[in-house]
């Protein structure tokens, strides 16, 4: 299926392009818009973005695969991303991941069969003083404990 921006996103794209003296600089904002609309960056999305930015698709592909936040496959409705870097590890990040694996019944890097939950480990999220922590979709959840996690999962119905 060919991908196309909604009328609203087309307008947003036109606004974004004006911020830069070079069209290519609109790459990340355009990919963000696309991911917000489509949920992930499919090859069709990359081809569409390449056309908008007047580049070959390879020049979009190399960017998409460089940045970890662009999803190269669909992710669950709720994406748990547990910080695994040193400060959080010192404060028990491993336990958080283990707890989520069991509770969500999702392997690390996987998505539940119903497409509801995805679980991954990520590198430092800049929230080291409030570890262990995770990012659930766009939101940070800090100073986590098993109880807090259970309450969080419980709220996602």
């Amino acid at each position, binding site marked *: 299926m060919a991908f196309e921006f909604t009328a609203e996103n087309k307008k947003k794209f036109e606004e974004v392009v004006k911020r830069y003296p070079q069209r290519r600089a609109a790459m990340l904002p355009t990919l963000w818009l696309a991911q917000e609309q489509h949920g992930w960056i499919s090859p069709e999305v990359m081809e569409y973005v390449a056309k908008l930015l007047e580049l*070959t698709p*390879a020049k979009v592909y190399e960017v998409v695969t460089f940045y970890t936040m662009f999803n190269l496959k669909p992710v669950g409705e709720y994406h748990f991303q547990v910080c695994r870097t040193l400060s959080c590890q010192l404060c028990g990040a491993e336990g958080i991941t283990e707890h989520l694996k069991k509770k969500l019944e999702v392997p690390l890097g996987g998505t539940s069969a119903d497409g509801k939950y995805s679980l991954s480990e990520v590198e430092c999220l800049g929230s080291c003083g409030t570890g262990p922590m995770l990012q659930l979709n766009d939101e940070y959840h800090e100073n986590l404990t098993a109880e807090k996690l259970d309450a969080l999962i419980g709220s996602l119905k």
Partner: protein
Amino acid sequence: MPTLTIDGKQVTVKDGTSVFEAARQSEISIPHFCYHPKLTIAGNCRMCLVDIEKMPKPAISCNTVATEGMVVHTKTEKVQALQKNVLEFILINHPIDCPVCDQAGECRLQEYYMDYTLTESKFREEKVHKPKKVDLGPLVMLDDERCILCTRCVRFCDEISKTGELCITNRGDHSTLTTFPGKKLDNKYSLNTVDICPVGALTSKPFRFQCRVWFLKSTPSICTGCSTGCNININHHDGTVYRYLPRENEAVNQVWTCDEGRLSYPFINFGRLIWGMLKKEGQLVPSSPEPVLSEVVSALTRMGAENLVFVGSAYESNENNAALKKLAQGLGVTDLQYSAHQVDDPYSDDFLIKADKNPNRAGVEKLGFKPFTGGTQLKVVVALEGIGKQDLLRLKEENPMMLILLASNQSEAVEIADVVLPIAVFAEQVGTFTNFQKRVQKFEKALNPKGQTRPAYEWLGEIAKRMNLSWEVASAEAIFQEAFGMKYEDLGKEGKVLGETRDK
């Protein structure tokens, strides 16, 4: 114009010259993978690190501008250790599959390993695995495990062919050279990426597994694919041509050549006429040279000059066309025409590929041959190889009494010929072509003529001798000198543009 010292040698270079190029100019070679003089500087391989006095850290010579009084060391123990250590990193994830690698024998990794390392790797971990046997494009195969991520090929497609098909995906030691999913490395210059790949990651589909490179001999020549006249080296072994590689000529092709041109060599190996032919009872049959020559001489003697048309070729060398002209003049023939290879809808661009697919149109025209028009009363046509499609149709229509053809390969023209003399192709003789810039460029003899073939000028000389024209079978250079008023050595390295008096 800074003067610097490299390994104790003083060298003065132009402003802005890199330490790497300054070293090259004083014949000091610095090992490198990613640096290429025609591409932007990536500085990623780190192999060209050198020690520069008063600099706190080793510097990459490719991105360091030479300055006055700089003192550079490229061969000290310290620098050799740097190079050895960088090489060790580059090799840890390399498969070291040299026995089955086409690059073996011309691989920078192998060469530098011999120069700097010669010890076992200390790497004892699982290597990163990446795609192997990737069908990258119609002419290029990729082995990602061999790739050292120097990005030369990516930069080539971005900066030279401007087609942008290649990219590096992912990060860290998972970085991978690839194309966009479902897209191919498919452009008119794609095989240059194979040339500039310093390792065996990119290989040429037509060349892979054909011949080990250490068997190949290399002979400087000129590509006959179009009127650009790209400078090439013919790589051959045991009488067979295996590949053309571009040869540097800043004034013509820099260091590149197009795929079509570089793959235009099979006519040298295949479909060759290696015997003379005579028509017997309406059928062309093979013949030894003597009867063929006798038939030619008898036909030319029988017919008056007014019944003869001599047809040169935009595909043949200046020397062969000049010899044809000389024979014509000796016989008093004034009708000099030439034919050319004709292609429907020829591709051309503003880089190296010209629509005119003949290497020597400017040359044959300069010698006074006129484009082929035929003639209503054609009796005998003496033609060099390379009769174009349109010309052939006309020739067939006009149906001359006799077509004497000097040809190297089977063709439709041969089918309608009455007498055929087998000639050597350009790769089997010395000669010159004049390209579209009117630049005269020399090619060398790579192979011995096959079977009974001889260069056309030799056959024409034989004919002249038998017809008692006061003409010796001359060397190619003698013919050239007579026709152009200069020697081969006057052509220099970049060839010589006719009408230009300057000498570089």
